[in-house]
C-alpha cells in the first residue's frame, strides 16, 4: 500500500490477529487464528504506520460495503 502521507510504497512487515473485534461481516473472522488478521505497514519515507485488514479491503472491493468494522 502507498503511504497516505507521502506516497512512498510502504513495507508490509507484520500480521497481527485482532481479538474481540466486533464485525458486521463474520466472513472476516479467521477461525484458525481466532481473530481478524490485520497487516501492519511502515513507511520508510516518513515513518507512518498503517494497519490494514486485507480481507476487509477485498470485501469492500467485491461488494461495495463501505464500513463493516466496529471497535478497532
Amino acid at each position, binding site marked *: 500500500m502507498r503511504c497516505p502521507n507521502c506516497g512512498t510504497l510502504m513495507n508490509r512487515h507484520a500480521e497481527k490477529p485482532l481479538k474481540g473485534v466486533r464485525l458486521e461481516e463474520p466472513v472476516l473472522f479467521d477461525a*484458525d487464528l481466532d481473530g481478524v488478521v490485520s497487516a501492519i505497514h511502515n513507511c520508510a519515507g516518513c515513518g507512518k504506520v498503517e494497519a490494514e485488514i486485507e480481507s476487509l479491503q477485498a470485501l469492500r472491493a467485491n461488494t461495495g460495503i463501505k464500513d463493516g468494522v466496529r471497535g478497532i
Partner: protein
Amino acid sequence: MNETRPLSIPVILGTTRKGRMSLHPAKLIVGQLQKRQGVTTELIDIADLHLPVDDAGEPVKDARFSAAMERADAIVVVSPEYNHSFPGLLKHVLDSCLKEYIHKAAGVVGVSAGVFGGTRVIEHLQPVLRELGLVSIFWDINFGGVEKVFDQNGQLLDQAYIRRTEKFLSELIWMARVLRYGRENVPLE
C-alpha cells in the same frame, strides 16, 4: 546482512515428564521449520541435558546447549503448563546461559490439557525471557486440549495448527533476521 548463513532456530522441549504430550507440538514445530528455506533447526530435549541441580549458571552449563544457544538466531520454547506456570527444570536450563541469548528472538508455544492452551505459562515466561535478553514475539501457539489435537502416536488431528504455526514462524523468522542484522551491524551508542 550475511543472508548466506542460514538462520538457526532450535526448538526447546521444556519438560522431562514421562508421557509428556508436549513432545508432539515440539516435533510439529521442528518439522515446519525444516520446510523453511534458509533455516536450520534441531530439537533440544531438556531431558537429555542432565544439568546438576545443586548450583546454577556457569557451573552447571551444558556445553552443547550453550553452543546451540550461541549459534541460535531465535529459539522456540515449547512448554507445558504445570500449576499455572512453567516446569522448574525448564527455568533451570534457561538460566544456565545468558550472553548466548542477548538480542535474539524467542517464541513460546504453550501446551495444556485444559482449554486455555498454556496461556498462563506463556505469560509467566515473558519476564524471564526479557531478563535473559531475549526479544519475545507477539505470536504464540496455544495447544489447548492437547490430547485431542494429537493422537497417541503424535499424529496431528487438527489441521488449523498448521496455519497457526506458519504465522508464528513467519513472525519469529522476521524478528530473527532483523535482530541478527542489528547484532552484526548496529553499534550501541
